[in-house]
């Protein structure tokens, strides 16, 4: 490979220079009279009241609404206008509205100080931090619901919750967790790190990026509003006709998906465009950090798969409100339509929740092994392969549904084929570990655990994809355990690895490594003790989402429940560590605590508003660890060459 060691002179000047600052607008005006979270909440409440009133006004005289005692039109309009009010309140629409009436929308100078986190910020770093709080809030809510589920399942017959409450808890847990998981890495780490890693000063569309976060929060509130509306009984999969039959909480679910879907499309679109167009000079496709590759593949899936979910949710909403019959078989619709639309989105969604995790381990392992990422091109190809294949497997969720039996061998084949590119990731991980001198810092522990967990998740996925075995395992605890192994065991462990690894960069404070190790070991052990027994529970015949089960399964269920409570405690340890290390007793992080070659560590700390004083020029491959004489990854343009670490011993 030829490596240009000379810095081109003409490339630096005009690339993504900071936009000129202009007159301030409401969003960024300092002080509490401007637009911020508070005005957004006021806007949402006013919007909800107005929309609900209007819905009742136009529709309450229709017989089918007057007779049913509930008005889904008013609920849907209330929530929709509420979301609109939220966006107006936070200031998301100032710029587009100004443009629409022919005014020049001003570029707002950023607000300084902590209040920027409560505003419509155009800085990708602020958005990343906002997302961390957002996804942790999501995760905490979903986690509490999970504890409630495991409490109910302590006994096969005695009920802590009524069947009604239980099914609402199960449905809300699944929906909240799935929506959280789509953004848990792309949102916080993707937004924060991608521009830093590709040497860009900002995102391509900062407003769309900010929009994606604030609509994500609105979607969370819409989905959560299902509970005060009486919940919904369908689980996160929302199958029709149960969907059509359900009460007003179903409106929150359908609209919540549509609202979050908007955010997912916006986030994916912005990130994909940024990666394609905003790479620093010299950042060729073969020099792109592997985390950025994973985020690019994920962004493509977000952009291409989510519209199907959006349309699916909208159809359901129309069925519920103005009595169309997209999913009503008696009237020419089809309940298979929902299943097809849902899983056509739903399976790429599964990889939206897996790929960023692969990216994180690929990014972190070279740092702690002091070795280059093994088979970099295979890793990138694996991610692209997974992303492409994920569009061709969705009917494996419908193997027992009665649809298309002759297509089963095809979907079995495509599903099993996806384990080839997924296997690439294992090749890459194991190759990178080979004969390395491995440092076990907390992020590395989480990476190793991902391989352990995801292997179980992946192998059991092959069992599920096999049609004969699927007869036993479909719709039971086996599949439940399988996807918790991939999403929680994979994605969530990767997220933790990423937080421990990059929080020092993002906040300038180290996470406490001693508490971190406690967190890791409790999470790893109790995660496995919670979910491994569920494979057995499923094989022994327990269907998902039940509150009554065979009495001979109580031992295993109790074991799983107790482990789940302890797993919950491991998350409290994490929160304690977060509070301790960030606020109570912060320890200042060194500029490059892990001695990484990554571009994100080379810029100043804290990161200046526009990231790089001068646009860096990428000189060589990433991950040239333990290679004496290798040129620096980037020329930062400050006259100093970035210090290139060569061996594992030169770190403090």
């Amino acid at each position, binding site marked *: 490979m030829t490596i240009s060691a000379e810095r081109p002179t003409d490339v630096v000047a005009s690339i993504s220079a900071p936009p000129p600052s202009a007159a301030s607008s409401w969003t960024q005006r300092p002080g509490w009279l401007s637009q911020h979270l508070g005005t957004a909440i006021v806007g949402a409440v006013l919007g909800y009241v107005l929309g609900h009133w209007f819905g009742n006004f136009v529709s309450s005289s229709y017989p089918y609404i007057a007779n049913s005692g509930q008005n889904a039109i008013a609920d849907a309009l209330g929530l929709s206008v509420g979301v609109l009010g939220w966006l107006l309140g936070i200031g998301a629409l100032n710029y587009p509205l100004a443009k629409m009436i022919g005014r020049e929308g001003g570029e707002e100078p950023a607000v300084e100080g902590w209040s920027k986190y409560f505003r419509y910020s155009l800085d990708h770093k602020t958005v990343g931090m906002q997302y961390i709080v957002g996804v942790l809030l999501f995760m905490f809510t979903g986690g509490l619901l999970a504890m409630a589920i495991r409490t109910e399942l302590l006994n096969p017959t005695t009920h802590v919750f009524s069947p009604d409450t239980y099914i609402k808890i199960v449905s809300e847990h699944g929906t909240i967790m799935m929506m959280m998981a789509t953004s848990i890495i792309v949102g916080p780490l993707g937004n924060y790190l991608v521009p830093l890693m590709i040497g860009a000063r900002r995102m391509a569309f900062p407003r769309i990026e900010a929009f994606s976060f604030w609509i994500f929060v609105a979607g969370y509130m819409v989905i959560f509003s299902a509970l005060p509306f009486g919940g919904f009984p369908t689980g996160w999969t929302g199958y029709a006709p149960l969907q059509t*039959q359900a009460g007003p909480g179903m409106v929150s679910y359908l609209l919540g998906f549509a609202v979050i879907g908007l955010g997912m499309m916006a986030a994916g679109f912005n990130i994909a465009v940024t990666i394609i167009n905003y790479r620093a000079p010299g950042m060729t496709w073969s020099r792109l950090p592997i985390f950025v590759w994973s985020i690019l593949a994920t962004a493509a899936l977000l952009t291409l798969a989510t519209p199907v979910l959006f349309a699916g949710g909208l159809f359901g909403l129309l069925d519920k409100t103005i009595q169309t019959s997209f999913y009503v078989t008696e009237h020419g619709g089809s309940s298979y339509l929902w299943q097809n639309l849902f899983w056509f989105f739903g399976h790429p969604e599964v990889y939206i929740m897996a790929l960023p995790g692969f990216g994180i381990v690929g990014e972190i392992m070279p740092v702690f092994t002091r070795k280059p990422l093994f088979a970099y091109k295979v890793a990138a190809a694996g991610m692209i392969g997974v992303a492409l294949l994920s569009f061709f497997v969705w009917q494996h969720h419908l193997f027992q549904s009665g649809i298309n039996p002759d297509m089963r061998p095809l979907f079995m084949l495509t599903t099993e084929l996806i384990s080839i590119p997924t296997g690439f990731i294992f090749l890459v991980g*194991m190759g990178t570990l080979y004969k390395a001198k491995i440092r076990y810092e907390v992020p590395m522990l989480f990476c190793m655990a991902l391989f352990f967990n995801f292997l179980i998740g992946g192998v059991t996925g092959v069992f599920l994809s096999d049609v004969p075995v699927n*007869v036993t395992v479909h719709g039971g605890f086996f599949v439940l355990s399988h996807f918790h192994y991939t999403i929680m065991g994979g994605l969530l462990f990767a997220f933790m690895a990423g937080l421990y690894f990059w929080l020092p960069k993002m906040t300038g404070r180290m996470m406490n490594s001693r508490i971190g190790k406690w967190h890791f070991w409790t999470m790893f052990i109790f995660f496995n003790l919670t979910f491994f027994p569920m494979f057995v529970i499923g094989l022994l015949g327990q269907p998902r989402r039940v509150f009554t089960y065979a009495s001979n399964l109580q031992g295993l269920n109790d074991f799983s429940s107790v482990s789940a409570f302890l797993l919950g405690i491991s998350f409290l340890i994490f929160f304690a560590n977060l509070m301790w290390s960030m606020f109570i007793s912060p320890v200042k992080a060194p500029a490059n605590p892990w001695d990484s070659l990554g571009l994100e560590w080379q810029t100043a700390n804290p990161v200046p508003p526009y990231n790089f004083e001068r646009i860096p020029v990428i000189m060589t491959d990433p991950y040239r660890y333990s290679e004496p004489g290798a040129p620096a990854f980037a020329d930062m343009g400050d006259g100093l060459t970035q210090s290139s670490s060569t061996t594992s011993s030169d770190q403090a």
Partner: protein
Amino acid sequence: MAAENSKGEVNDLRRMTMIWVVLSVVADLLFWFLVGPHVPPGRMTETAVNNQRTFNVLLVIALPVLIGVWVYLGYAATMWSAKREGVAESVGGEGARTNRKVQVWWIALTSVIVIFLAGYGTFAVIAEHGSGGGEGPNPVWSPSGATQAETAALSGSSSWTPGHVLVVQVIGQQWKFTYRYPSFGGFESDKLVLPVNTEIAFNVTSLDVIHSFWAYQLSVKADANPQLNNVAYTETKHTGNFTVRCSELCGLWHGSMYNFGKVVSSTDFMNWASTTQSANAANTANLPPFAWTYVPDANGASGGWYPDGTVTPYSTVETYGSKTPAS
């Protein structure tokens, strides 16, 4: 230096391979002989036997894969830990970045395993008439005699004698399963009784939302869709009791939507069926004629979603319940 390196390399790999081979062989043998015969769903039907065998074959392939990765991770974690004394420094450079031979072998090996699994699964699902899964209204893999039995059932001319295919209809509704026997006058029962050594054609439908008929020990699972006949086959092999559970979330009482069935001798079955047929005769007369699907009318199970009396569901199939729409 170079020689020492390559020697160390061989040693590491050889050690790992030896641990892997020993553990894999032991695990596979233990599993196949000790656990395998007891793997769910047991051996009550032909499909159960076959699906158990498929599971076991998959696990025998999966165990060495799992053990291989775990041995590698475990070896790496202990032997190459920076905490261990005398561990060599990491070496970077081209050799650490790629290894064409390893990559080609890895991709070839995973591809062979995957394509074998897909082929084996395809063979199993075709040879086993859908492996007990719901094949929809027009099954592509039917056992012999099934089509004739189904046609006879629908035309009302069905009767059953031992050795022939028995058609049983499964009707799911919130929140119970009932069963109709077209070969015995179409009576409906909440008990599922089956004759042994008989090919059963389950015709699964629903009156309201989607349920899933999961006869666990029979290794049969078929979604019960409203207005759709979902056919699944199995051949009973042993007498005994089995559990039926709903395995698709169907609302409030999904968790208690289960009942029990039994496989009995042909004689016992004939006795039970003819006794029930005459005992239920009065009820049967009030049921809609036997059909593959039933549409609940406006009073029916879909929660009064279309309560407007002018809406009459259009369908060529039978209306279940009151024939006059509510006003």
